[in-house]
């Protein structure tokens, strides 16, 4: 498979992964090298998110995570939501000061990220007042600000229309590091990722370069 690639930064060896007490995935073996763009696909409920979370646990310090739901605080501004990517780097007192009055130094850091995501006009708007696509971009902004060499995304475009989905996907993949994402859309997976892992019946069904994925294989995966 990927034995030719140098230095896996993430690897699992025949692991069973359980989720809230019961085994969700069996006998998972995979390794991901630096710079790879990997999509995880499969029917809903098959354990894509569970696998992604397990991968996150392997490298929590180097990873940034883009959540599907619940991660944004809709009552806070875009600025603060993005800033939350680095809470643990500063003292609580520093964070509290920045909550009450955004510090110029942090605004300087975050503004370019917001510009990249076309959120510069919304920097101090309440996140809850933004559209679904804009909110998803705030989530990506947080992951970008968090930094690290691995970006993980859980269904980052599931609530968006196709056009917006492509924009967001391009942003995520273009973050320029190792990217691992669960996805609903096979088309987007093929378009943006160079390796696709298909999950079926609690285990890995295939793990192939994107161009080798055939229609029959997909039919069997989702069948």
């Amino acid at each position, binding site marked *: 498979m990927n034995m030719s690639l140098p230095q896996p930064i993430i690897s699992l060896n025949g692991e069973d992964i359980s989720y809230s007490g019961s085994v969700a995935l069996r006998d998972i073996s995979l390794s991901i090298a630096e710079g790879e763009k990997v999509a995880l696909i499969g029917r809903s409920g098959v354990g894509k998110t569970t696998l992604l979370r397990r991968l996150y646990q392997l490298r929590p310090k180097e990873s940034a995570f883009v959540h599907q739901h*619940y991660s944004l*605080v809709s*009552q*806070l501004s875009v600025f603060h939501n993005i800033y939350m990517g680095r*809470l*643990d780097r500063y003292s*609580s007192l520093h964070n*509290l000061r920045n*909550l009450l009055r955004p510090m110029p130094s942090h605004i300087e850091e975050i503004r370019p990220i917001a510009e990249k995501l076309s959120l510069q006009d919304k920097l101090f708007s309440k996140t809850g007042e933004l559209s679904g696509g804009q909110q998803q971009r705030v989530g990506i902004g947080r992951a970008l600000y968090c930094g690290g060499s691995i970006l993980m995304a859980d269904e980052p475009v599931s609530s968006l229309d196709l056009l917006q989905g492509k924009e967001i996907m391009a942003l995520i993949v273009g973050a320029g590091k190792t990217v691992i994402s669960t996805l609903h859309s096979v088309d987007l997976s093929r378009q943006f990722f160079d390796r696709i892992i298909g999950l079926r019946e609690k285990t890995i069904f295939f793990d192939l370069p994107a161009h080798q994925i055939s229609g029959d294989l997909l039919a069997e995966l989702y069948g």
Partner: protein
Amino acid sequence: MLRTSLLFLLIAGAAFLAADISITTFDPWFELKRMALGLVTPDFFSLPGFGRALFNTISFALLGIAGAIVAGFVLSLFFESTLVRLFCAFIRAIHELFWAFIFMPIIGLNSLCGILAIAIPYAGVFAKVYSEIRQESDQRPAQALPAGTSRLNTFFYTTLPIIYKDLKNYTSYRFECALRSSAILGFIGLPTIGYHLETAFREGMYSQAAALLYCFYLLILSLRFWARPRLILLPLILAVFFTSWDASISLANILRFFTYDILPWPMRAEGFYAGSQAISLQPVQIVQWLKDIVVTAALPGIWNTILLTQIALVCTALFTLVMFPPACRKFYSRKVTGCAHIVLVMLRTTPEYILAYIFLQLWGPSMLPAIIALFLHNGGILAYLTARNVNLMQLPFDTSRKRLNRYFYEVLPRCYGQFLAFLFYRWEVIMRESAILGILGIYTLGHFIDSAISDDQLDKALVLIIITALLNMGIDTLSQKIRRSLHISAHFVARSSS
């Protein structure tokens, strides 16, 4: 929201400067030590008449609530009428203790007085909440019935089954409140557990007082086992049979109360001195009489009641914000949250009146004991509720590991709106209690009402009670307005478990 919060903080700060806050007792810590000693050495065996007091506490609450359910339910059916709504707002704006004050001269200090004192304000509460529950319930099943289905059938087949659980939860929560009301009615002489508590505290018998308090906690804890719809009929029947109903109710007495005792004094003065019960209309003197009441009692009473309410409200808020994290699994382990829950449940179970009484014994009369009692009790309730809400919150798994970061960035922004809604719900409750705590010797409205009653000036007492009720209704309206303008609501969560 932030601006509203700061405004209230500012008002409370100003009120704090204007309020009388001091410790006047000679050696508060000595008495505190004795109390603490009493708490660890409860004496369950030297309480004469205690069984009867416990029975009365339960039976007043049970019969009062039963009456309130029936009356409240009927009233709730007519709640669209402005008259009914105002009537209900008025009767629930008058505290149980004030209702007892009103009934004392009419029917005497007996079971009926206690039961009515609970039944009337609770009927007003039930009418409002039952009708709200009905209005907010899912109407679609009722609309889907065949045309021509009678209103009665519609109610029993669709509406009632849908709202039953909400009704039940709210009613059983209110039963717990009624037990607290019943207990504190003892402090003004009715034969409930509060009567013995007052005696024990006044005479410094803290071991007995502790035993009474512990029994009260046990009573509240035991509710879940017997206060159930299927079982409640038995205690209810027992209460009807074993309550002492021997009240000497005379129609003449009642008539006299309404047609003579509560008339403004100037109308009765001439006849009184002449030895007859003649009434004369004296417009000028009546205006003077009213002015006297307003200037010497109502205005200072209102001023102090508002000061106390605003300070206590903000202290309740601060206490809640500090105290809910320890009771919350998002911040602490199960061990810590378990302990925090016990503390919060104890605070919620102890009526603020009793807390205020204890602190007054310790520190002497000033607003300090009242403030602390109010924020401990109300803050205990709100912290418990807020913690429960936050436990339901889903935080991202990669959230900050530091508690303070999670508190200020993740949890507080998310729960603040609902917290404020809870708080504004309690505003009116805190004001009712602030007025009542005057009976204990601080100069809120209750103090002036209590003095008027002891001076046998029923006319004056009634005017002051009505003023207190209007003040409460005003705060209730204001609280609703603020909640609406901030778009926050607490719905059933707040009601059925606050």
